[in-house]
């Protein structure tokens, strides 16, 4: 039996009737067409599906849409503000923190939560903080630099 839900996604209220089994990632991708959130596994390991629920990074393949009822969800599409890239997006671009780009949205959103908790992380803290996200291209080093780049800018108060 479908359930009525109301979720705010990237600032916009979305009201739908959904199957209880509908995964949040499929709601975002297939129902709302927000395909920036990717699916890379089904065992909650890879982190490609990471989004923010009420500001916290979660793996949207391991959350039912109905569980997110009433929540605020932020996806990669919602990070830009007024046409300006988020410092993390800038950091990933400047420091070559991505290659194929598939893990990138999830990586950026996990880093978003990490920087919320630790605005000035060490390299080691970044590496551990991003252990829920796999990247197969970069060897992670430029991702670390990208997050450091963003952290610096965010601390400098550019945002």
């Amino acid at each position: 039996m479908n359930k009525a839900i109301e979720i705010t996604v990237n600032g916009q209220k979305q009201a739908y009737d959904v199957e209880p089994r509908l995964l949040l990632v499929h709601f975002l991708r297939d129902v709302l067409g927000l395909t920036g959130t990717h699916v890379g596994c089904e065992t909650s390991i890879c982190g490609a599906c990471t989004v923010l629920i009420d500001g916290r990074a979660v793996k949207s393949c391991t959350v039912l849409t109905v569980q997110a009822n009433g929540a605020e969800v932020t996806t990669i599409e919602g990070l830009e503000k007024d046409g300006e890239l988020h410092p993390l997006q800038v950091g990933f671009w400047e420091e070559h923190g991505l290659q194929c780009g598939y893990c990138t949205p999830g990586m950026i959103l996990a880093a978003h939560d990490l920087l919320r908790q630790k605005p000035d992380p060490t390299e080691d803290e970044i590496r551990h903080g991003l252990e829920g996200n796999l990247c197969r291209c970069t060897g992670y080093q430029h991702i670390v630099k990208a997050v450091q780049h963003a952290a610096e800018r965010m601390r400098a108060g550019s945002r």
Partner: protein
Amino acid sequence: MPVTPKMVGARIKRREDPRLITGRATYVDDIRLPGMLHLSLVRSMYAHARLGAIDATAARAIGGVVAVFTAADLKGQTGPVPCVAEIPGMKLPHHPILAEGKVRHVGEPIAAVVATSRYVARDAADLVEVEYDPLDAVVDPERAVEAGGAVIHEEFGDNVAFHTEAPSPEADRAFREADRVVKLRIVQQRLIPMAMEPRATVAQWASGDRQLTVWSSTQIPHLYRTQLAEALHLPENRVRVIAPEVGGGFGAKLNVYREEILVPWLAMKLGKPVKWTQSRREDFAATTHGRGQVDYVEAAVKQDGTVTAIRAKVFVDLGAYFQFFTPMISGFSTMLMHGCYRVPALSSEQFGAFTNKMATDAYRGAGRPEAAFMAERLMDEVARELGMDPVAVRRKNFIPKDAFPYATPAGLTFDSGDYEKALDKALEIVGYDELRKEQQELRKQGRYLGIGVSTYLEICGLGPSVMLPPKLKAGGWESCTVRIEPSGAVTVLTGISPHGQGQETSFAQIVADSLGVGMDEVLVVHGDTATVQSGVGTFGSRGTALGGSALRMSLEKIKSKMKTIASHMMEAPPDALDVGEGKVFLKSDPSKGLTLAQVIDAAYNFKAGIPNIEPGLDATSFYEPTNCLYPFGTHIAVFEVDPETGRIQWRRYVAVDDCGNVINPMLVEGQVHGGIAQGLAQALYEGVVYDENGQLVTGTLMDYAVPRAHMIPHLELDSTVTPTPVNPLGVKGVGEAGTIGSTPAVVNAMLDALAPLGVKSIDMPLWPEKVWRAIQEAKRS
């Protein structure tokens, strides 16, 4: 005249990134078409079984299910899954789209369920009942080639897919005359490529236009189109393949898979667009694996450390069927098993074994990591047996820098190299001599520091067309069209198909410098057979070396035409002119000339009626390389081993790579970082495990350890630059170098650390328990 900063050689941030960091890129699964159906596959639970009845009654009864197909429905309608590789005397098994009569590996597709949503397709797939009559599974490649036991393809009588020999009387003599023979048994375990984006295919058939459009996550859209047209019996010009954004490939998407034929067939059969997106479990079980060899390798050695011959016997774990290049991958291993060392004689023997597993095929490095591992492990073993420093043994055997072009005993010609230079630089950065002293000190305290050196060499940028098999219907060339639009915008249509490598940026850098236009004027287009004239694709570290050379050729043609046009307008001979800085100018007086805009206008407006010149301003080239490319470098791994747990604590990782000239150092770093991560992962973490019954035990990311950020150390990179004379850019390739160089460095470091404990060998991956166990066993003996 003012000189704009050179783009080539600069750290230019990528032009691909804005769409990727904002979630606006389009990967295959992002494609939505009206009326699109979804495919779910019923796959084999058994490694080896005869198929009985397949009952899809319950599946068909679910609302939303459109059709269920099995092999019987496909009979005669499609060709088999293509294998283009040919090995003398090899047996080529029939490779159906859906299993026919038997299943031969876990994950082999048996039935195709098509429904209106992916949820319903998945529900219905669960309801298809398949009867199996299990057979014994063949898993060990060494035992597979022995007589007796289950036969995977009955028509062949045994599981020997091929047996090749490359004997050498010189090698035999060298072994007879050797002071010592150093022997190793090496297990190059199977690996899962694991591109972050699982494979996916969408197909749409426009029956009125008789036009098939396929979006697929592939590294080779053009080669795939050729094979697909043949498999579906369609004229090739009725097939358009698009590789949209592709989320990594690593060789696993250098292929044409069952689903890539099935999905287009379904779209044609059902008259509706069909989408299939692989789950990660399917990816593990039914996308090609890499490596998979057992090598018995030995070196004939003189007392001073000189290696005079190498001999190898290789057992290749091919899997149940052949994918695109399956049987030819291991050929690179023995061909290059001498690495960058002057070894006068090689002899080898290979057994290709059918096993009840997914096929192996190209995976980042494809045969060369195996070769480098043999060479680099041998060097360390020679050093250990002779009591020499591993660095000294390498120096002793290096091909000297004045020996290029160097003809190898396997018939290759190394283009250029200065192995000692890269080694010296790496030793200096890491502080080798001090580290060795520290190692001695630590050993006295019962601490085990390991210093592992790998002075790898690889072959890439394949290559002269003659090196590729005829069934590929393509050579080793690459193609590029450069078109200067009437507005002055420059469109580059390249036949390579980048999926993370960044050539939308690096090619624009080349164009910008060549024509003196702004990067923003340049658009690099790839991955669509309807817009890109022709191509081979991105694999084997060939993108920049071959695609870039084709681009260079087209730019030269265009510049030549511009000079001809300008020559007519300026009344100066073409030879007196040059193109650059956005102008065509007089070499003798650069202040005199025409702007590109004037020349472009003349080419398109064509009112001047320039004789012997066609209107327009574009050029297409096919670059055919005269040789392969041979990048090299030195990697040094340093870590401390906790003998109590078998865990390691990283100290340093230094890599000095030489890939010739560099277009964009930032992209090169990225390639090397990623490559090293995968190579370290082979050494330390990753390994496919099939159990004795052919069940895939490492079936998910829960049990297959793809490294996370904290499992990779901070990497210190540097480089030397030894340009290749082979291509006009002087670039080699760098996509695989890191993977090739790093694995032996880590294993050498581990064995170096444990040498005082008497540990001589540990098979990869170096899981802590294996390390601990090796220490226990060494203590006992």
